[in-house]
C-alpha cells in the first residue's frame, strides 16, 4: 500500500452549475521514502493538487476523489480536528516564499517550539527547555550558521535562504512521513537553491520521508526525483521514471518543455519557447487541451480528448505518443494537420 493514494482527484471552484475546474482526473501514488517530482507551467494545477492533499482547499473550493488516502486513512472522511491532528504531524509542507511563510511577529524560536508544543513528544510538550533544545537541534540539522543567535531572530532579520532553512526545520520538527515542497527554491538565488535542495534531499534520505517536489524547473527534477509527473491545465499529461522521461519524452508537451531548457538552446540566439499560455476558465479548448499549442496537432486532437495510456508507470495523455526518436507514432501523418489556432 502506498503512503499517499489519490485516485481521480478533482478540485473545483466557483458555483455548482458553472464550476471552474482547477484540477481533474489526477491519479497519484507516493511510496514511503520516494522522491516524486511534479512539473508544469504556471497555472497547470500543481499547487492546487498540493493544497488539496493538505486539506487547504477552502470553500468555495470543492475537492472530490474516488480515493484520497494517506497511510490507509481516508482524508476526505476525517473531521476537521482529526485532519489537523494527522496533517500537522505526518504531512508537512514548505512554500515558495520563505519570508512570507514565517509569521513576522514572532521569533524563530517561538515558531519552532509552537509546533512542538502541540505535536511534540510527551516530554517536549511538558518542558519548555526541552523544546528549546530541540529547536536548536533542528536549526543545526538544517545547517544554519550560528543557530543560538538565530533562535532569537525575527523573520525579517533572516536572508531568504536562511528563512527557507527555518521553514524546513519547522516542517521536519514532527518527523513527517510526507513532505510536500511547493517550489521550495524558486524565490532563492541560484547558489542558495542548490544548497537548499541538497539539504532537502539529505534530510529526505536520512529520515526516509516521501518527498513531493513541485517545481517548474525540470533540471531540479532531473537531479532529484525518481519519478515525475508532468501536469498541464489541471491534468496529468505524462508520468514516467527519471531519467527515461527526459531521454525519451512521450508527450509533445514534455518534449516542448525540455526543448525550452537553456541547456538545449546553446547555439540559438533565442530560447525555444512554447507559444501561447496555459488555457484558463474561458478559453478551454475542445479535445486535447494542448492542441492549440502542440507542434503535432492534427484534426483528431481538436475533437477527441485523449486518455492517459501506455504501460503503467510510463503513461502519456496523447493520441500519438512520441517514440524514442521524438517522432509521433500511431499512424500520425503531417498532412492531417488542422489549422492551428491563431493567436
Amino acid at each position: 500500500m502506498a503512503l499517499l493514494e489519490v485516485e481521480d482527484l478533482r478540485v473545483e471552484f466557483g458555483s455548482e452549475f458553472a464550476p471552474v475546474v482547477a484540477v481533474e482526473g489526477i491519479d497519484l501514488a507516493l511510496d514511503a521514502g520516494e522522491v516524486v517530482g511534479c512539473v508544469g507551467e504556471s497555472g497547470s494545477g500543481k499547487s492546487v493538487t498540493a493544497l488539496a492533499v493538505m486539506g487547504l482547499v477552502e470553500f468555495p473550493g470543492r475537492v472530490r476523489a474516488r480515493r484520497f488516502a494517506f497511510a490507509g486513512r481516508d482524508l476526505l472522511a476525517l473531521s476537521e480536528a482529526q485532519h489537523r491532528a494527522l496533517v500537522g504531524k505526518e504531512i508537512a509542507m514548505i512554500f515558495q516564499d520563505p519570508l512570507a511563510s514565517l509569521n513576522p511577529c514572532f521569533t524563530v524560536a517561538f515558531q519552532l517550539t509552537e509546533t512542538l508544543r502541540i505535536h511534540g513528544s510527551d516530554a517536549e510538550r511538558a518542558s519548555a527547555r526541552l523544546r528549546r533544545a530541540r529547536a536548536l537541534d533542528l536549526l543545526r540539522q538544517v545547517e544554519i550558521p550560528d543557530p543560538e543567535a538565530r533562535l532569537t531572530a525575527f523573520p525579517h532579520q533572516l536572508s531568504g535562504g536562511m528563512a527557507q532553512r527555518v521553514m524546513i526545520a519547522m516542517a521536519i520538527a514532527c518527523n513527517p512521513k510526507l513532505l510536500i515542497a511547493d517550489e521550495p527554491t524558486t524565490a532563492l538565488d541560484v547558489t542558495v537553491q542548490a544548497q537548499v535542495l541538497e539539504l532537502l534531499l539529505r534530510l529526505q534520505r536520512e529520515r526516509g520521508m516521501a518527498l513531493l517536489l513541485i517545481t517548474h524547473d525540470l533540471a531540479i527534477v532531473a537531479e532529484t526525483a525518481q519519478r515525475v509527473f508532468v501536469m498541464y491545465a489541471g491534468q496529468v499529461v505524462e508520468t514516467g521514471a527519471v531519467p527515461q522521461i527526459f531521454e525519451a519524452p512521450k508527450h509533445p508537451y514534455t518534449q516542448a518543455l525540455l526543448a525550452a531548457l537553456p541547456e538545449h538552446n546553446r547555439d540559438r540566439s533565442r530560447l525555444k519557447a512554447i507559444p501561447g499560455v496555459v488555457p484558463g476558465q474561458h478559453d478551454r479548448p475542445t479535445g486535447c487541451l494542448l492542441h492549440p499549442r502542440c507542434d503535432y496537432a492534427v484534426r483528431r486532437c481538436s475533437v477527441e480528448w485523449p486518455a492517459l495510456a501506455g504501460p503503467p508507470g510510463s503513461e502519456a495523455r496523447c493520441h500519438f505518443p512520441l517514440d524514442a526518436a521524438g517522432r509521433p507514432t500511431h499512424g500520425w501523418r503531417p498532412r492531417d494537420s488542422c489549422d492551428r489556432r491563431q493567436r
Partner: protein
Amino acid sequence: MSEAVSAVADDVAPVRIEGPWREFWRAYAQSRGALLGLGLTVALILCAIFAGVIAPHPPYEQYREFTLTPPAWQAGGTKDFILGTDPVGRDILSRLIHGTRLSLLIGLISVAISLSLGVVLGLVAGYVRGWVETTIMRLMDVMLALPSLLLAIAVVAILGPGLINAMYAIAIVLLPHYVRLARAAVIAEAGKEYVQSSKIAGAGPLRLMFSTILPNCLAPLIVQATLGFSSAILDAAALGFLGLGAQPPTPEWGSMLADALEFIQRAPWVVTFPGLAILVTVLAFNLMGDGLRDALDPKLKR
C-alpha cells in the same frame, strides 16, 4: 561538502540582532513632533497621577471672597490663584490638574472598551467572512453614517447622563473605526502563507485568529487607539459641555467650560484655560499617534 558551501554562501556576518523595541524607538525618535507628543503625554500622565500633590488647592474648595479672580499676571490677580478662580471661587489650576485624571480615564476606558470589542468583531468578520461579515460590517456602516456626537447624545439619552455612561457612549461611537481597521488588516493577513503553514501545523481557528493573525494586525490598531484617545477626550468634553457627561461639581474640562460660559465676556480666563487644556491634550495624543504610525506602519517605513 554542503556544510562548507553553506558556510561560505549564507551570510555569516557577526550576529548582532537589534531588538524590536530598540528598532521601534529609533524609528519613532526620528520625528520631533512625535517626541513632543510623547513628552506632553508623559507630563499629563504624571499630572494625573500626582494631582493631589501638585494642585495648590483642593478642586472643590470654594474661596467665596475670591470669586472670578483674574490670573496672577493680570491686574487684580493674586499669586495664590495662578490661573484665577471661577464664579464660585474655586482655583482653576487645581481643577484643571484634577481634570487631567478624568480626561485620561475617559480616554483610557472608552478606547479600551471599543478597541477590545472592535478587535474581536473585526477579527471574526475578517476571518469568517460570509454572512457574519456582512451583518457586522453593515451594522458598523449604519453607526458610521450617524454624526458621532449625535450618536453619543442618543446613547447618553438612553443610558442617562453621567460620566460612566458618557464613556460607554464614546466607546460605541469609536467602535466602527476599530472594527473596519481590524477586518481590513485581518483579510490582508489571512491570505498569507504563514497563516497556511500554521494551519498545516495543526492550528485551530481560534488559535489562528488570535495568536497567528492578530499580532500582525496590531500596528494600525495601536495607531488608531492613540488617535482615538484624543477624539474620546474631545467627545467627552463635548458631552460634558452639553451637560450630558460629567455632572457639576466634577472638575471635567468640558463641564468647566459649560459652567463658565456666561462669564466669557467678563472673565475670559474661566473658559480659556480649560479650552487650552483640551487643545494641548488632544494635540499631544495626535502627535504621538502620528509618530507611532510613522514608526509602525510598514508602508511608510524607510
